[in-house]
């Protein structure tokens, strides 16, 4: 890993946000992912979203599991506390962190292996438990760190580098999240920053379980033929993700959004964002319609991107548990230790 010392000074005209911070204040260390990796685009989108929302970086906790996706929290929001936990278990660690301090923003970054395979259970239960978080899956349908095995989101019929054909049915995390009660569900594409940044912003502002599935090609569009970086590792990924083709097919649709077809979505901080409508009659507040729409589109070989569902009155684990407004990690002896008098009373009841 390289640590490039960054100059502390900057051009006086450089863009700053409400906190007076620059984009650089939201950066992390230099990515060690493959050049052109879709995941780096996601990191970049996260940085942009946090910058634009003027969030103090140190009030964000970024948590991940294991895998290419889970390495990314090192590459954004340097001043934030990060936790690279164990494979597939980010959701439980995030839940615990959230219970300890309800005032911070929790950003969980996971991958398709991390969330759809080894951590499928934790993904499901953190969503149904309504943890207030942004749960972002960088979804490439493949295991990158171990060089190209199928993940559980790989499409049936997809072909790996070594020729293996995936015969298992794919798991669609978006459908799952809808079913499990996520109150904010979106899908985007790492190459579509214009769509991804506002989605991340909206997800952060949402006070409940917000799930974003980001289709993120494993090694990017600019992995041109003849590149000196075309080692086996790179090539395996490139071919393993047949979704890459799939994405390309979707791209025209994205471009074909009818102009003016927009939807205004109100956020919890009182602001609102404008989202381009996915379909003309699409209503982001109708969970059942959303599921039906996803299924219909899937049957015709299309992947739906955008804000798929949002509940304006989301659930939250802290509300369910009825916890105090003070973060639990700030409670002191006086609030926590009931004292000898209470013990004496208990003692007398035990004789």
């Amino acid at each position, binding site marked *: *890993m390289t*640590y490039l010392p960054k100059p502390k000074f900057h051009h006086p005209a450089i863009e700053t946000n409400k906190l007076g911070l620059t984009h650089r204040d939201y950066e992390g260390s230099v990515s060690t992912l493959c050049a052109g990796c879709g995941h780096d685009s996601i990191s970049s989108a996260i940085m942009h979203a946090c910058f634009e929302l003027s969030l*103090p*970086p*140190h009030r964000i*906790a970024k*948590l991940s599991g294991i895998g290419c996706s889970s390495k990314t*929290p*090192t590459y954004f929001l*340097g*001043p*934030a*506390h*990060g*936790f*690279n*936990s*164990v494979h597939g*278990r980010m*959701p*439980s*660690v*995030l*839940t*615990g*962190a*959230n*219970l*300890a*301090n309800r*005032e*911070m923003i929790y950003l969980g970054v996971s991958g398709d292996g991390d969330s759809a395979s080894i951590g499928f*259970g*934790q993904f*499901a*239960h953190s969503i149904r*438990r309504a943890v207030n978080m942004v749960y972002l899956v960088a979804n490439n349908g493949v295991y990158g760190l171990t060089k190209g095995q199928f993940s559980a989101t790989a499409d049936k019929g997809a072909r790996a580098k070594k020729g293996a054909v995936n015969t298992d049915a794919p798991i669609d995390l978006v459908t799952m999240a809808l079913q499990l009660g996520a109150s904010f569900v979106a899908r985007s594409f790492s190459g579509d920053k214009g769509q991804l940044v506002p989605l991340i912003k909206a997800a952060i502002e949402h006070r409940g379980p917000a799930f974003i599935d980001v289709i993120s090609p494993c090694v990017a569009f600019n992995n041109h033929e003849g590149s000196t970086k075309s080692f086996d590792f790179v090539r395996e990924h490139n071919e393993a993700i047949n979704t890459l083709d799939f994405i390309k097919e979707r791209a025209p649709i994205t471009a074909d959004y009818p102009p003016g077809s927009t939807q205004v979505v109100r956020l919890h901080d009182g602001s609102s964002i404008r989202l381009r409508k996915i379909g003309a009659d699409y209503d982001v507040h109708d969970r059942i319609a959303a599921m039906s729409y996803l299924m219909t589109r899937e049957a015709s070989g299309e992947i739906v991107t955008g804000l798929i569902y949002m509940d304006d009155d989301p659930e939250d*684990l*802290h509300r369910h*548990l*009825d*916890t*105090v*407004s003070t973060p*639990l*990690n700030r*409670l002191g*002896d006086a*609030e*926590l*230790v*009931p*004292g*000898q008098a209470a*013990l*004496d009373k*208990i*003692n007398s009841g*035990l*004789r």
Partner: protein
Amino acid sequence: MSIHSVNDFVVRFANINGSGSASANQMFARAIIRMGVPVATRNIFPSNIQGLPTWFEVRVSGAGWLGARGGADLVVAMNPQTWDKDVASIDPGGYLFYDCSRPIPADRFRDDITIIGVPLTEICNREYTDSRQRQLFKNIICIGALAAILDMEIEVIETLLSEQFRGKDKLIDANRKALHIGRNWALANLPCPIGLQIHRADGVGDRIYVEGNSAAALGAVYGGATVCAWYPLTPSTSLAEAFISYCRKLRIEPQTGHKRYAIVQTEDELASIGIVVGAGWNGSRAFTATSGPGISLMQEFLGLAYFAEIPAVLFNVQRGGPSTGMPTRTQQSDVLACAYASHGDTKHVLVFPRDPGEAFEFGALAFDLADRLQTPVFVMLDLDIGMNHSLTAPFRIEPGKRLDRGKVMTYDDLESGRDFGRYLDVDGDGIPYRTYPGVHPGRGSYFTRGTTRDAYARYTEEGGPYVENMERLLRKFLTARTLAPGPLIQMAARPTKLGIVHYGSTAPAMDEAATQLARQGVDVDVLRVRAFPFSDEVVDFINAHDRVFVVEQNRDAQLRTLLMVEHGLDPRKLVPVLHYDGAPITARFITRAIADLVGVDQTAGKEKAPA
């Protein structure tokens, strides 16, 4: 010849699970305690829900011995299914108390015991019409009859009834009536009292009678725990449930009624420990309650918590293993699985409470240790401690004692420019400083990970910093020896080269066995280990003796292994004494095993040879 004994006998109730007998049986035990006579009670219950046998054992011990004794002097046989076994379990000269409403063939009794028949069902059917009432009051009628034959003070039971049903006068009257129906029938029809009698004494003092899991949960409240994540698993379930119930009483914000705690019943033990680790990382005191199978599932996270240095408390209420093993039986068989949990080089801090009193004390202390040492701490309970009520000293906290949050750098520390290296050994004790996430806008943040890093938490795979870090973790473990509870030593009356090492729930039986051995002329010094890593006193004790019996409730002599591995102690001098059939260890067993090993002719002693 019938057994005659005052304040020293064992009553075993053979019940049908789910028949409502449990609370009546507890009342019987409490009544004896209220008469100032110590009792030790144990539930023996197979792993099932309803309709199958359970036993409740009340050892009445004026001398105050609280370990299991073995055998039974009086069996209250209420379960036809286990009749033959129950009748056979009575010591010669003992007593059989049964419901004689229906005739039982003569060949299913014994002629060397006293038979006491009470037509409980017949009385109930006569007195009550409702079938639920018949069942519930049958248990109370039974207690009334037992009170008569054992010469118990009926007023004591009446007081207990009015306390239990305080505010429900109708219930008090109905129960009192049932109690007297049973008592009056026995007084009129049976020779009362029998040879076994309870006489008022002054042997209980201010002690309380409480379940270990409940005491440990209260310890967690007093230890400042705010997050509990758990998955139901016998025999640990009642610990989490007790925490829920204590928190409801003790941890409500008065102004708002909101909760100063968060409890999550998770989807599995992996999520439980994950939540505990996440909360510990973020500065809350968090714990899980589990048993062996849960510990197995948590292994990967335990390695992470050890290596990333995150405080976590685990209450392990041990049961019979391996695998599903004996879910409702007791063992101390997770010692090694906890001490070295997870892959790679790991060592964990364990504390071994002996009874509910120490379960409370260590339950609270574990959170200070975890924060101070920034590592997982295991409170090693077992089913015998956890799921049984026992007499124990009243709960007390040290006046003026504050929670020890360990080395945490605050906003002001960071603002003042103090150097912060998450894994930097500033004080030479191996314990670095940590920060709570989000504390300062520009300083104190770091990346927590299970991969290697340098003292400033920067990722590196260099061998030097890795080894340095692993060595520092060892230094930290040495520091733990000075912080964890030290051993307690009880020296024999005369100097001896024989020693005993034991721990946890073996203690009550060991107390009694030491006295029995002394009576047989076996002088032996006894050390009770209360924590791992072992302090110097443990090693010194073993070095000072020629032969040391290590008494444990597992097959593989796990604590002995730990002593040998960690301190290079001579295996030939550490003699294992092992009891692991799932029943709690008894003084009879320990005494016989050690007397055999040292070659004492036990018939020469005053003690009756163990049955």
